[in-house]
């Protein structure tokens, strides 16, 4: 009996063989003693397993088992610790922190210029102010009522120095 025939015999026992093959297998079992012996063995094994699980019991009391499940469900309901930042967010932070720092310096510089610089501003004029240390330039158009702060990072003076240094 080849392997395919053995698997067909098993499928026949399991009720998974198509109808024409079923009749053929039944005939074979009548004349083939080896096939009949194998069918008997497979049947015995199946019968030995039948109903075997009926007596299996969880070795924990109802209350104890439920208390563990309930604790886990309650734990999952409460908000957990904050999730770690994603790499994308971390990259944005690396960019935003210095950028916002520079913007703040520019803003403070602008305030200082307006309050302590003693500049008389007349309507319709345009001014340009350079803050040497920060590399910030402020343009203000009073006629339009607009202020533009130009920030360069690193400061242009430093960059210029670097360039000179490189040329030398």
């Amino acid at each position, binding site marked *: 009996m080849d392997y395919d025939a053995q698997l067909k015999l098993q499928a026949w026992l399991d009720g998974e063989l198509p109808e024409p093959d079923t009749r053929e297998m039944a005939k074979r079992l009548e004349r083939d003693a080896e096939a009949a012996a194998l069918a008997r063995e497979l049947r*015995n094994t199946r019968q030995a397993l039948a109903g075997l699980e009926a007596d299996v019991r969880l070795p924990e009391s109802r209350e104890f088992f439920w208390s563990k499940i309930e604790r886990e469900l309650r734990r999952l309901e409460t908000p957990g610790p904050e999730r770690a930042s994603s790499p994308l967010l971390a990259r944005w932070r690396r960019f935003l922190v210095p950028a916002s720092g520079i913007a703040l310096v520019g803003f403070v510089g602008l305030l200082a210029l307006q309050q302590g610089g003693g500049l008389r501003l007349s309507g319709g004029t345009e001014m340009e102010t350079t803050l040497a240390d920060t590399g910030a330039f402020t343009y203000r158009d009073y006629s339009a009522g607009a202020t533009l702060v130009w920030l360069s990072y690193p400061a242009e003076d430093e960059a210029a120095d670097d360039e000179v240094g490189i040329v030398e």
Partner: protein
Amino acid sequence: MGLNSHGFPTVEPMTVKDYSSADDQSLVRAAQRGDMAAFEELVARHRDRIYARAYSMMRNEEEAIDLAQEAWVKGWQRLRQFQSESSFGTWMTRIVINLCLDQLRKQKRQRTESIEALDEESGGVERQMPVVTVNPTAGLERAELRRRIDRALGQLSYEHRTVLVLHEFEEMEYKEIARTMGCSIGTVMSRLFYARRKLAALLADLKKQDLV
């Protein structure tokens, strides 16, 4: 039954007596509305079956308890997805089977396969096994039969044991087992054949030991 301010029927909360006398469907509906006591009743009713399935697959009491517990937690979390296409017990059993399979696959990756398991995978061993002509379990008491089968099942690889468990205990068809285990129907047939023949041989060996 009245209507609430949103126009939906109001549902009276169940009493302890209601829980124990309610059918599974009513308990599931109550649990789907967030009634944890109804879910507790479902756990109490089906815990043995879920544990038995986990144990038959894992062959380890502690792991089976942990996985059964995990299955119940998952069951609660996915309860809204339960559509009553099968019984609640069957639905929960599918959850624990999948958890056990995941766990067994993890364990398999972590350990070196035994020579026997490699033999099984390469196939052909079962073809040379002599047919067991005498029923090796005839006349055994139920407790003894269980002990022997437990021992024999423990000697099968998890793939063979699982196919056997799904077919014999869960009464799944070949194609359903193939879908659950992520393999072909041919593989299921082959594994089932090996598992049965090996089990018969192991039980016959135990019977021979009795006679000596």
